[in-house]
């Protein structure tokens, strides 16, 4: 079916939609992409691009293995043994492994609160989650004016669970004492303690608690955030610790390409399944499979409203009034504009409507309660459609949309659009056209084999050229993960790092627009964001971040050496000179001052470190 469609003829009728921004393209000089990168920089360059930044020892390890072999291995993540430390970190993050229905039933999302309040759903099994749900149900009922005067106190009062001395320690003890006490809480009473503990105390102890206990605190204090908490923690731990670095880079890339916003209604509990089932398995697979997985995912159906798109004539009301629901074009438009063809990919408003008609009936069973995809024949538009010149005969049912996905996945505009987006992320903001042509050719030849397209790019001379070297400004997550990796910091609490990333302008899972985040350099260098990077850099090196420890003694008293340790190459003369001045100034005030942490922080906040 995929190949049998005569695509060659259909582009005559394509009318370009008005371009989104009418910026004139300046003449671009591509000559730097012809200059080969010196051998000794190639390894650092590859590590900078295909990982979330090198860790100490990585450069040597890749050299030893051979660069080509290492890249090939990264392209086959299934052959790489995963870091056991990562598995340990992910273990407590339960929602990552649940089905949608389980996620819905387990966490106090607004949807669950309502469902429990009206008796449509039972509260969760987990005692801490149950307490959180019950508390919110009471609030919900009070707001509805049906306060049933149930007592708000926990089942067992705090004072009965812990001795007066223990409570005093938790209030006024030092961090070690508090930590020790928390670690020794008896297993059987731990949930009761969490439920009974006053919320400000939970907040205060958050960074000191074990990961399991911390998650319980989170569930008790900010129950609506727990699914996001799990996602954000896992995203950070994977970026920092995974041995399958390119795979994680690509999960980030493809999630962003098929972006879904966690704060839109049911997407609050649909995203763990989305990332795990629709994105993750396909990041190096075939584009058509990735497209299918996203198109039929409840998360995407909900986010871009296709779940409520119906053929208007199927929902006519008997009194002749206009139907309350109808065709919704949102998904159809973004599918072509953002997921496949690109804005100049050659489709018209008419095509958008035709595609939307094909997708009527692609919906979700019980959308507000974690239901799965289903095709609702009753609201499907049964007429004939013409998409990009291809006739899709009447009465095709669910297959109408499958045909659309075939057409789009095999369209030359898609090959170009996807190749360019990959090259913009991995090579440079303005990748040379010859490289894009070769990548697009591979895409077409292999029917969208992403691994092969990646290979064409990573084996190209343009990838290992002076034009690509340090050509990209790190995105906030790349900046923060690479700083953690470069300093070999131990992270025991990743969530605050995710919040930092949000402050730098890239709130994880919270890009509201279907465009996803841009990888363009200009996007990431705003005033507030640069200040945020500098403040993060200094705080990290001076061990001022909760739950993150850097071993300062790793760094040298010689700032040039410290810079090399962090950057894996020499700092620029300007950066070195500025650090030398700062350190000399410190030493003139106090000859014995220890400056390793300061100089490491200055390197991490320098212009040099913002590039990859």
């Amino acid at each position, binding site marked *: 079916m995929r190949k049998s469609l005569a695509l060659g003829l259909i582009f005559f009728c394509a009318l370009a939609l008005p371009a989104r921004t009418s910026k004139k393209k300046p003449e671009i000089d591509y000559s730097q992409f012809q200059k080969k990168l010196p051998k000794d920089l190639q390894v650092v360059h590859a590590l900078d691009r295909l990982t979330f930044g090198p860790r100490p020892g990585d450069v040597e390890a890749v050299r030893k293995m051979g660069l080509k072999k290492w890249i090939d291995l990264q392209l086959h993540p299934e052959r790489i043994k995963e870091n056991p430390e990562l598995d340990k970190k992910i273990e407590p993050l339960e929602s990552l492994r649940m089905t949608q229905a389980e996620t819905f039933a387990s966490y106090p999302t607004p949807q669950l609160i309502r469902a429990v309040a009206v008796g449509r759903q039972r509260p969760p099994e987990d005692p801490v989650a149950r307490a959180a749900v019950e508390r919110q149900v009471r609030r919900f009922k009070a707001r509805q004016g049906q306060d049933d005067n149930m007592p708000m106190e926990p089942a067992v009062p705090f004072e009965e669970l812990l001795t007066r001395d223990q409570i005093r320690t938790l209030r006024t003890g030092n961090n070690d004492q508090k930590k020790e006490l928390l670690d020794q809480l008896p297993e059987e009473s731990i949930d009761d303690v969490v439920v009974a503990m006053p919320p400000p105390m939970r907040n205060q102890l958050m960074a000191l608690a074990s990961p399991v206990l911390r998650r319980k605190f989170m569930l008790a204090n900010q129950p609506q955030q727990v699914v996001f908490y799990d996602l954000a923690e896992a995203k950070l731990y994977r970026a920092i610790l995974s041995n399958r670095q390119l795979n994680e880079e690509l999960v980030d890339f493809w999630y962003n390409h098929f972006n879904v916003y966690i704060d839109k209604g049911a997407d609050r509990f649909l995203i763990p399944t989305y990332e795990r089932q629709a994105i993750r398995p396909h990041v190096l697979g075939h584009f058509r499979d990735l497209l299918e997985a996203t198109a039929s995912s409840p998360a995407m159906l909900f986010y871009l409203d296709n779940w409520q798109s119906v053929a208007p004539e199927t929902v006519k009301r008997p009194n002749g009034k206009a139907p309350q629901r109808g065709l919704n074009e949102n998904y159809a438009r973004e599918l072509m504009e953002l997921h496949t063809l690109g804005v100049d990919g050659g489709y018209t408003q008419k095509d958008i409507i035709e595609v939307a008609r094909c997708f009527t009936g692609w919906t979700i069973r019980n959308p507000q309660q974690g239901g799965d995809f289903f095709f609702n024949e009753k609201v499907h538009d049964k007429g004939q459609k013409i998409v990009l010149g291809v006739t899709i005969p009447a009465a095709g049912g669910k297959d109408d949309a499958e045909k659309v996905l075939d057409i789009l996945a095999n369209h030359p505009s898609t090959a170009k659009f996807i190749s360019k987006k990959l090259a913009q992320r991995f090579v440079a903001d303005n990748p040379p056209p010859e490289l894009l042509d070769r990548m697009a050719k591979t895409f077409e030849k292999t029917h969208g084999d992403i691994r092969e397209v990646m290979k064409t790019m990573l084996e190209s001379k343009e990838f290992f050229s002076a034009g690509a070297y340090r050509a990209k400004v790190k995105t906030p997550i790349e900046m923060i993960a690479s700083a953690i990796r470069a300093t070999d910091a131990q992270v025991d609490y990743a969530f605050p790092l995710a919040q930092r990333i949000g402050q730098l302008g890239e709130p994880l899972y919270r890009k509201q*627009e279907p465009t996803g985040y841009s990888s363009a350099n200009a996007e990431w260098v705003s005033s507030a964001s640069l200040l945020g990077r500098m403040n993060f850099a200094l705080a990290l090196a001076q061990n001022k971040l909760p739950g993150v420890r850097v071993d300062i003694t790793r760094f040298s008293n010689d700032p040039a050496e410290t810079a090399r340790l962090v950057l894996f190459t020499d700092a620029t003369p300007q950066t070195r000179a500025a650090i030398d001045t700062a350190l000399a100034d410190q030493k003139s005030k106090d000859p014995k001052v220890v400056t390793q942490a300061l100089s490491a922080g200055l390197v991490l906040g320098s212009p040099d470190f913002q590039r990859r």
Partner: protein
Amino acid sequence: MNRRIFLKSSAMAMVGVGSTPVWLSRALYAQDAPSPRKTILVAIFQRGAVDGLNVVVPHGEQRYYDLRPTIAVPRPDGTPDSAIDLDGFFGLHPSLRTLKPIYDSGHLAIVHAVGSPDPTRSHFDAQDYMESGTPGRKATTDGWLNRALVTEERKSPVRAVSFSADLPRTLRGLNDAVAIANLSDFQVRDPRGASTFESMYAGTMDKVLNGTGRETFEAVKLMQAIQKQQYTPAHDAKYPNGRLGQSMRQIAQLIKSDVGLEVAFTDVGGWDTHVNEVGPKASVGQLPNLLNDLGQTLAAFCQDLGDRMADVTVVTMSEFGRTARENGNRGTDHGHANVMFAIGGDIKGGKVYGDWPGMADEQLYESRDLNLTTDFRDVLGELVTRHLGNRQIANVFPGYNDPKFRGLVL
């Protein structure tokens, strides 16, 4: 005193000799420098969809009272729980009484039955459309308030500021814009780092980072300079303590510091009043509390700025209105058209603008919501063109080719 001398003395007094930021000295001393004293637009987004029908009450419309038996604001009768009459047909909610003097002085214009033509009743989509300025078009990447900035050579690092943690959608785009959660946090916290980073970014060959780095430290210096003195609002203006009041206080501080602010943005949530919108009296409940905060903030802002309001316009907006009928929970659900305020020295106020669509069943949008008679882009477009002086309206609101200005600006 001519404008340049005024500028020089006030800005220099603020910044102090020896620490004049590059941008400011450029502005102060260059012959062809733009005056930082420009017209300024302040946009306030009321997130959650405010119930415009209970904010500016059509007390002359019997249907309003029929459709809202328990939550309508009573007809003006001079008591503190009735509407404050504006023109015999419309009245202000009593919790907005601080705005009445501004209306009477001719500096508050109200537009009713205004909003986005897009039929969506999703907060998510509607806010998105109103911030991008392109209803129905989800993939627009920048916002109208960013596009409203006129491109120019020498620009202030703080020409576009949002008082929020993240840069909101409406300020994203090609022009530089800064998000400031709080003025006092806008700095490198470790003093040993600040000067070092400044010289690194000033010296780097990296063009992208060099440019923004320079602007950043200029902005930081400006912010720190204007904070050297404790800010005391003028004319005994008292801002409420909430986030909105404090954001507007800092916007006033920036305006009075003459640092080149052109557009500012802040938002305030809580307007999604499905339940108990109004309590037993019109002046108590969720909506009255929020209106009280809004009214006091706007009044304090005008009072604080005094004559400086000649350069400034404040505009309010919200993603859509609420149902004409009250629901079963003394609240209202998601609707369509709404109300907007414009306050400023060059605003032709003292009037409720817009054609009143009526509230009979057949006059309501989809038989349930107030119908739209003014597109929100007509209001914003007029402010952008006539107040900010940006004539490239087709760039600011692409695809909206035929704006109908209402004549709000003098």
